[in-house]
């Protein structure tokens, strides 16, 4: 099994304050990995470092045979301007960027794929709805539809199931499992231990530095969670910034 992503002594951070320190590990190609850790452990930072939005302070992250548009990234919802006058279909269609770019037209074949992606996430009939009118769950379904069209080898999800209803979560998890089944590499930042154990074979536990990485049942232990919390508190100081456990 080859590695899809290799972290080499990776240090990431904002304004010289490291949020992720000396991360050294590999993500296997085709794996389905959950990234867990206390708040402030640097999970979202790690994803941003992988998209290239954040340059490493030290070390590097390298992708085996992956180009920029082979990576799909789902940010936290707050990064999208929901008031912008776009419809569900507009937003989903942009998942075709790799094929249409800034200038290309959307052909009938593209239309079919858009329709099918929308159907896959259960939003058929919502194509012309403005994104501002969607519920949190519907919005997340829309973004998953866009991810589907991106057809990426590596999928990065930042808290994809936060604040959505159980039904939506089930539907979206089945999308994630489908990606896994198709051999794509999926990394998801999650905070719900139950979801992680139920659906994610691999787990990477982070507390600014690597705590553990491997099969979920070996990583997601009480012992590791305690260590993670301690590490986080030790380096951040005030307990309230990372008081909550990873599970």
């Amino acid at each position, binding site marked *: 099994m080859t590695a899809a992503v290799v972290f080499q002594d990776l240090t990431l951070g904002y304004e010289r304050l490291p949020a992720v320190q000396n991360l050294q590990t590999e993500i296997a190609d085709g794996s389905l990995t959950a990234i867990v850790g206390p708040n402030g452990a640097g999970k979202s930072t790690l994803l941003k470092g992988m998209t290239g939005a954040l340059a490493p302070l030290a070390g590097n992250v390298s992708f085996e045979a992956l180009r920029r548009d082979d990576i799909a990234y789902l940010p936290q919802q707050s990064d999208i301007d929901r008031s912008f006058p776009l419809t569900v279909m507009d937003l989903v269609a942009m998942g075709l960027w790799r094929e249409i770019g800034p*200038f290309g037209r959307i052909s009938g074949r593209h239309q079919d794929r858009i329709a099918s992606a929308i159907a896959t996430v259960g939003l058929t009939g919502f194509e012309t709805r403005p994104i501002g009118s969607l519920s949190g769950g519907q919005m997340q379904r829309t973004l998953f539809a866009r991810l589907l069209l991106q057809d990426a080898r590596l999928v990065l999800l930042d808290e994809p199931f936060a604040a959505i209803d159980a039904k939506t979560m089930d539907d979206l998890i089945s999308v994630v499992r489908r990606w896994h089944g198709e051999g794509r590499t999926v990394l998801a930042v999650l905070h719900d231990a139950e979801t992680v154990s139920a659906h994610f074979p691999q787990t990477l536990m982070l507390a600014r530095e690597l705590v553990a990485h491997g099969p979920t049942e070996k990583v997601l232990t009480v012992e590791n969670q305690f260590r993670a919390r301690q590490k986080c508190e030790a380096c951040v100081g005030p307990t309230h910034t990372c008081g909550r456990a990873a599970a």
Partner: protein
Amino acid sequence: MNESGISSIRLLLLGAGPRLAGAALVIAALWAGFFWAIATPGAL
């Protein structure tokens, strides 16, 4: 919010070709207006 207001013009889904064609139409109309404006007045 329902589908009221000006029915949506799906500019985002158009390729550059149709967009440029539309722009060309607008620009042509604009310059036509320009020549109308600088023409010496017919009615005095």
